[in-house]
């Protein structure tokens, strides 16, 4: 007989679905099936079961191969590396729980490290814009119950957040949106005719990188001022039409993603999008929300925020917290060769940083803590496998709308395997000994 664990959290994307059901074997050791999750979420649970999983730390040898070492040796190497480095970078923190993040920050304070999370390649420019102009936002629950105008700008939830539309933004029947998607109008702005765009009432197939211009054009159109015939490749009539559609709603929301944060104008795109939201509030109720990627990147920003006052790129090397994206951000530090050791947990910069930054990781003393084998673990000096958060250990996580949700443990990790938090706690203790502090 198998049993079903209800109300499990999916630890993949920022939608942080909390209705997953996982069927486990009678002895509670293996996952048999996963219900309600999307294809990516289900794969995340199933991969935890892979028979070829690495269960002990591995140290790189001079010939490039890897040799198994004990967790004790791994703790010692990590602690020595961090203590001996002048300016270590501690990067990642998005695929782990808040409890582990907090222990990591304690270590960073002791050794004088820079702490940066995956926002640095994701919504970092959003965080900069929010500090510049503020943000009128809401929760996904409010959107489900009230929103009748949904704008996806530079994001493709059908691929990146597969259940976002069915759980919150388009299909669910809410309190004031009791006809589901029939109550809602959907606008998509994207240079490709994405699978999300194909479902939209209006799709603006914008010239890539011209978001700032189109956002400005909407702000002009809202006021019924004059526009040139085309903006960003879009005819002006279509822009006026979209502006009217936005104004005529009772509650609207702009969701935005990498299309705006990673194009050339970066944070200026976002502050213009936020100002468009502000302008729309003169006509009706409007909100704006970042489509956060990793399931707990939002949590990393929260924990860093309440501990040090800044959400990413926190430089603790001088004994107090400094923050200066462009200077204290991972890719700038790596490219300029300003760090002398790198510790990665809960992210894969080897796959997701520009190759010039990855080369630096391969040259430096480096530790990668990750349940998977990844391009990062395969260029790092030490790989420490750990239990999967949200599958083999619980903990606090923050959804994209800053709502904290407790992840659940479904099965035990393989015998003798440490969790992120346990590994970090042991490193922390060893760092304290080496530094002679408590």
């Amino acid at each position: 007989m198998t049993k079903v664990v209800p109300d499990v959290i999916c630890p993949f994307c920022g939608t942080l679905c909390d209705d997953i059901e996982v069927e486990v074997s009678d002895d509670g050791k293996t996952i048999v099936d996963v219900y309600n999750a999307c294809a990516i979420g289900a794969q995340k649970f199933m991969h935890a079961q892979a028979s070829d999983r690495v269960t002990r730390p591995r140290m790189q040898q001079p010939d490039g191969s890897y040799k198994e070492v004990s967790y004790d040796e791994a703790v010692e190497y990590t602690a020595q590396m961090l203590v001996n480095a002048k300016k270590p970078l501690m990067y990642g923190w998005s695929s782990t729980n808040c409890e582990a993040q907090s222990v990591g920050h304690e270590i960073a304070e002791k050794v004088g490290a820079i702490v940066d999370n995956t926002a640095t390649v994701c919504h970092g420019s959003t965080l900069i814009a929010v500090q510049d102009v503020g943000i009128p936002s809401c929760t996904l629950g409010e959107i489900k119950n009230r929103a009748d105008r949904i704008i996806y700008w530079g994001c493709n939830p059908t691929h990146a957040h597969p259940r976002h539309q069915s759980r919150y933004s388009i299909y669910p029947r809410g309190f004031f949106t009791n006809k589901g998607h029939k109550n809602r109008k959907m606008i998509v702005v994207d240079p490709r005719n994405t699978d999300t765009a194909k479902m939209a009432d209006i799709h603006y197939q914008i010239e890539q990188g011209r978001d700032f211009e189109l956002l400005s054009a909407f702000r002009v159109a809202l006021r019924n001022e004059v526009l040139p015939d085309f903006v960003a490749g879009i005819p002006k009539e279509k822009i006026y039409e979209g502006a009217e559609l936005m104004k005529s709603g009772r509650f609207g929301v702009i969701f935005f993603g990498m299309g705006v944060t990673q194009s050339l104008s970066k944070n200026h795109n976002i502050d213009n999008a936020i100002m468009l939201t502000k302008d729309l509030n003169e006509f009706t109720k409007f909100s704006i929300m970042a489509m956060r990627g990793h399931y707990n990147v939002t949590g990393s920003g929260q924990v860093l925020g309440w501990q040090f006052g800044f959400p990413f790129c926190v430089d603790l090397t001088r004994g107090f917290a400094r923050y200066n994206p462009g200077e204290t951000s991972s890719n700038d530090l790596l490219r300029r060769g300003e760090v002398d050791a790198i510790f990665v947990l809960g992210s894969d910069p080897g796959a997701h940083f520009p190759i010039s930054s990855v080369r630096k990781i391969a040259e430096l003393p480096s530790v990668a803590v990750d349940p998977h084998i990844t391009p990062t673990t395969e260029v790092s000096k030490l790989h420490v496998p750990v239990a999967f958060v949200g599958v083999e250990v619980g903990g606090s996580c923050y959804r994209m709308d800053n709502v904290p949700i407790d992840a659940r443990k479904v099965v035990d990790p393989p015998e003798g395997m440490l969790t992120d938090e346990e590994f970090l706690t042991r490193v922390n203790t060893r760092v304290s000994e080496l530094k002679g502090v408590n």
Partner: protein
Amino acid sequence: MTKIALNLISGRTIHQGVAMEAGKEKDAYTKACGIIEMDPSDLKKLGAWRSTNVRVTSPYGSVVVKAVEATQGPHPGLAYIPMGPWANSVTDPNTYSTGMPTFKGVPIEVEIAMNEKILSSVELVQKKCRGEV
């Protein structure tokens, strides 16, 4: 040999997400991300059939991937490589003091490279780090 100039963007696809969670060292990840999605009109300009290996070169690097027809098009002039080490071999690392590399809007040139091999993620990153490719 014909070379065509395109504007490159990258991002998530559901196949990339699923393959990544199944294991980045596996073949499925290379199949999902070691590709470049091109508009049919651009494939024609290049004179390439679907599923031809091509070399993509930017001011920042070069990589071999498989050219496939865009499923989320039409988008002539625009090319798409799913996020991962292949895209990041050619992406623009400049952050312009924001911390964020310019992952979208990279000028690239594409040429047919029928006999060149598409490396797996781990091979690609290791070889790039050792300066072998």
